[in-house]
C-alpha cells in the first residue's frame, strides 16, 4: 500500500493536482508540520500546534487537494535539520506568502531579514514594516506567522529585552535563542 500511495503522490504532482503537499519532520522541540504549494513553503506547524487543525485550515484557505507527500519537502527538511544542528544560518527556500496579507506580510518580510544570531524589538519591526506606531499589529503579525523558524519571529523581543511570546511556547523560543547564541546556554 505504501508504494501505491507514493506512486499516487508522484503522479498527482506531475499532473498538477498536488496543490498542498505536507510532511512531518523531527526537531529537538518535537515534530514539525511542513506544507508547500508548487510556489514554495506555505506553512510550518510547531510541535504544540494541532496538525489536523492546520491541515484543515490549508484545505479551506488554499485548496482541499492536500496530500502527504514527503518527497516535495526534502529540501525544507534538510535545511531545518542543518539549522537545528547549528550548521545553517540562512534558509534558502522558496516561500509562498499567501497566508499573510497587507501589513502583516510586510512585518513578516521585515522579520525574514533579521540575520541569524541577532534580535529586533517589536517597535523596530513595526518601523521597518512602514508604521512605527503599529507595534501591537506587528506583534499580532508575529503571533500569526504561518512560517515560524524560516521567518524567524523568535528573533523579535520586547523593547526592554523581555522575551515576549512564541507560538511554539516560551521554552522553544528560549531554546532557539540559545541555539543561535543570543542567550547563554
Amino acid at each position, binding site marked *: 500500500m505504501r508504494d501505491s500511495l507514493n506512486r499516487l503522490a508522484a503522479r498527482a504532482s506531475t499532473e498538477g493536482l498536488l496543490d498542498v503537499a505536507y510532511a512531518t519532520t523531527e526537531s529537538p522541540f518535537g515534530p514539525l508540520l511542513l506544507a508547500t504549494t508548487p510556489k514554495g513553503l506555505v506553512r510550518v506547524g510547531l510541535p504544540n500546534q494541532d496538525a489536523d*487543525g492546520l491541515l484543515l485550515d490549508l484545505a479551506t484557505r488554499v485548496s482541499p487537494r492536500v496530500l502527504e507527500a514527503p518527497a516535495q519537502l526534502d529540501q525544507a527538511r534538510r535545511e531545518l535539520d542543518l539549522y537545528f544542528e547549528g550548521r545553517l544560518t540562512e534558509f534558502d527556500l522558496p516561500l509562498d506568502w499567501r497566508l499573510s496579507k497587507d501589513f502583516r506580510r510586510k512585518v513578516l518580510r521585515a522579520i525574514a531579514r533579521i540575520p541569524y544570531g541577532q534580535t529586533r524589538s517589536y517597535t523596530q519591526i513595526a518601523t521597518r514594516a512602514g508604521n512605527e506606531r503599529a507595534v501591537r499589529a506587528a506583534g499580532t503579525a508575529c503571533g*500569526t506567522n504561518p512560517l515560524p523558524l524560516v521567518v524567524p519571529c523568535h528573533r523579535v523581543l520586547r523593547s526592554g529585552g523581555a522575551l515576549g511570546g512564541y507560538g*511554539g511556547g516560551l521554552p522553544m523560543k528560549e531554546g532557539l535563542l540559545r541555539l543561535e547564541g543570543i542567550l547563554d546556554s
Partner: protein
Amino acid sequence: MSELTGPYSPFSSDTPEEEGRVSRSVVPRRLIQEVSALPPFQTLIDDHAGDVMAVCRGAVGRGDADDCFQETFIAALRAYPQLRDGGNLRGWLVTIAHRKAIDHHRARGRRAVPVAEVGEVAVTDPEPEGDIWAAVGALPPKQRAAVTLRYAGDLPHSEIAAALGCSPEAARRSLHEGLKRLRKELA
C-alpha cells in the same frame, strides 16, 4: 471557519503555553467532516484507501488492482474541489473505483480477440491464489460488481443499483446469484 489567527500572541506570554507534541488525533476526523464540507484530501486516503483497493481487487483482480486504484484516486483528486456534498466520501470513492474498473474492462475488451459467441462469462481468469476474491473474479461482470461493491465497498443495495445503473431489485438479484455461485464454487 477557523482562521487560526489566535493560537498564540506575543502579548500573551503571561499565560503559560501548554507544552505538547504535534497531536494529529486532537480533532476527530468525524468532527473535521462536520466543520468543513471538504476535509484535506489526505483524510480520504487515510480513511478509505484500503476499501478502494479491496474494491479494485475484487473488480479487476490483484494484478491490475493498483492501476485501478491510481486511476480512482487521480480522478477523485481532479474532481474533489468541485464536489458539492462531502457527506458520503466513501461511497463517492467506491463508485469512482467501480467506473474505473469498467473502463479497465472496456480497454481490455478492445484489445481482446473477437470470438464467435459472447456469453455471460468471466472477464478475467481466476487467479492462482485461490482466495475468495479469485472466485469473485471468475463471476460474470454484473454479479462480480454487485458482490464487490457490497462486500469490498460496503455499499447499500440502493448505491449498488446506482453504480450498476439498474433497479435495487436487479442489484439484489445479481448479488444473490453471485453469492449462490460463490458458495457452489467454494464448497
